[in-house]
């Protein structure tokens, strides 16, 4: 009796692209799975979230001591000029959970982005970071912004004060 693992290839549906392939070919396909960190910046509205949800789970499960490392990786993805708006939004949602004053320092320029969606998403990422640096960044942005985000940013400063 062979000690090799036997992988049956006779039961696959004809429509399965792996049907009829050798076991080696199929194992190779497993190794082609993309790095989820490289997918975030390409995410568009309506896209399959399966890969990026892996990152979300990693961060939710992480020990707090791991947060600075994840924050660094997220900020790197956010800084990529090719990052999509939806991808930036996904990053900001995750940063909202773990962001530190480092995120405030790195992202505060985006609080006054001409793109109101980017400006708000940035505020979402850092609004809950405790400390005066955050309040000062939000206050400065509120003074520089025009339109709906000017009010939103000012409201966020007032809400922080009220919560304290």
């Amino acid at each position, binding site marked *: 009796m062979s000690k090799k693992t036997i992988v049956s290839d006779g039961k696959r549906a004809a429509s399965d692209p792996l049907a009829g392939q050798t076991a080696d070919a199929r194992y190779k396909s497993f190794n082609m799975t993309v790095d989820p960190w490289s997918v975030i910046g390409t995410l568009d*509205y309506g896209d399959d979230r399966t890969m990026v949800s892996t990152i979300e789970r990693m961060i939710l499960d992480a020990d707090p001591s791991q947060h600075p490392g994840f924050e660094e990786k997220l900020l790197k993805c956010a800084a990529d000029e090719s990052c999509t708006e939806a991808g930036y939004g996904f990053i900001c949602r995750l940063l909202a959970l773990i962001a530190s004053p480092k995120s405030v320092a790195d992202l505060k320029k985006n609080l006054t982005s001409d793109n109101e969606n980017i400006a708000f998403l940035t505020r979402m990422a850092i609004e809950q970071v405790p400390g005066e640096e955050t309040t000062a960044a939000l206050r400065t942005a509120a003074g520089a912004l025009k339109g709906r985000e000017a009010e939103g940013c000012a409201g966020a400063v007032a809400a922080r004060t009220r919560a304290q």
Partner: protein
Amino acid sequence: MNVSRRDFVKCAGVAAGAATAFPTIIPASVLGQNAPSKVLTVACVGVGGMGLSHIRQLVNRTTARIVAVADVDAFHQKRAAQIINKKYGNNDCRTTGDFREVTRAKDVDLITVATPDHWHAIPAIDAIRNGKDVFVEKPLTLTVREGQVLVEELRKHKRVGQTGTMQRSFEGFHRAAELIRNGRLGTIKHIDVLIPANNRYVGATWKPEPVPAGLDYDFWLGPAPYAPYTSQRTHYQFRFNLDYAGGQTTNWGAHYLDIAQWALGMDESGPIEVDGHGVYPSSGLFTSPTRVDVRYTYANGVTMRMRTRTDGISDGNIIFFGDKGSLDVSRSKLKSNPEAILNEKIGDDEIRLYKSRDHFGNWIECVKTRERPVSDLAIGHKTNNLCNIGNIVMQLQRKLKWAPVKERFDGDDMANRLLTRAMRGPWSLA
């Protein structure tokens, strides 16, 4: 001060002139809630599915009269106004796409809010700050922080606020809670809560679609992050997207966890520990869990487990287990083991719970008496906290310590950050 009919009409003319033409019904605020007509003027904010239910609850009453509706969907506005005008035999019902036109209107006494959940707190707070009494649908707010601000504003402005957890006005639930509070099951050990599964599903991907004519989609999104329109996002389905609601955990949990809180006498408190696991879609438009399993522990040792039911029944139910028996209650049944428990009388010297048999009627009565209604917003807020911390614990998948009065988690910064959310401008809780 006694006010003659003639003086009343004269004052009313001043008020009517300040507001949009509204010649016959005078807001009680003109002369106080004891005005001769005692007809309170109502504006309904959000008149889709639940909003129509509010209208049906109000339109036949002689104590209140609907004068305006607000909805970001012009179709909803028109449909609601037609129902109201047909009932009143006129064309007086005003319509608007901006809730602020009614929450700030001088000729409106009461505001009902039946918008999607992410739009509950802001119009309710705006109404309260403008002197209106409010009826706010359940789940009361999207976040714990929104609920805190809402209750603070309610008390500060001395308004009357009812939460839409109407099971407190159902005889069966009242009877069950009263039996439990008076020890007929002995010491309560455990509570099982079953809630329905999600009843809408979408695939792994979705495509942006053109916004339908008449829908102010940007206003619909409001404080939530921008996302392109797709038909499955709005109206009923908003319930299954965590940007706008909390899934069935808040949709049905708000009803049944509320009965647990009532029966346990925990209206001003809550559990001290929460644990749970949810099955989340890893892709697609919907983001709320498709299966929920949350376990709560109270300081007195009572445990409660809320799960998604799998029998297809579109109602929840709650089963209390005590050391002398059990009691199973839902909207369609009230059963006990032993059966004799249901025949027990509650004596005059025992605990009698707040009795209401008409949730809207109780609210309107309390507006006149300035008493607190059966589902005062503070009670709805505490119940809603259970729903929200349930969603948080399922998301984090780790046991959390909860301080029910302080309304904070102990020692978990990430969990505490999930108690509030950033709001897209111009909206805020300021």
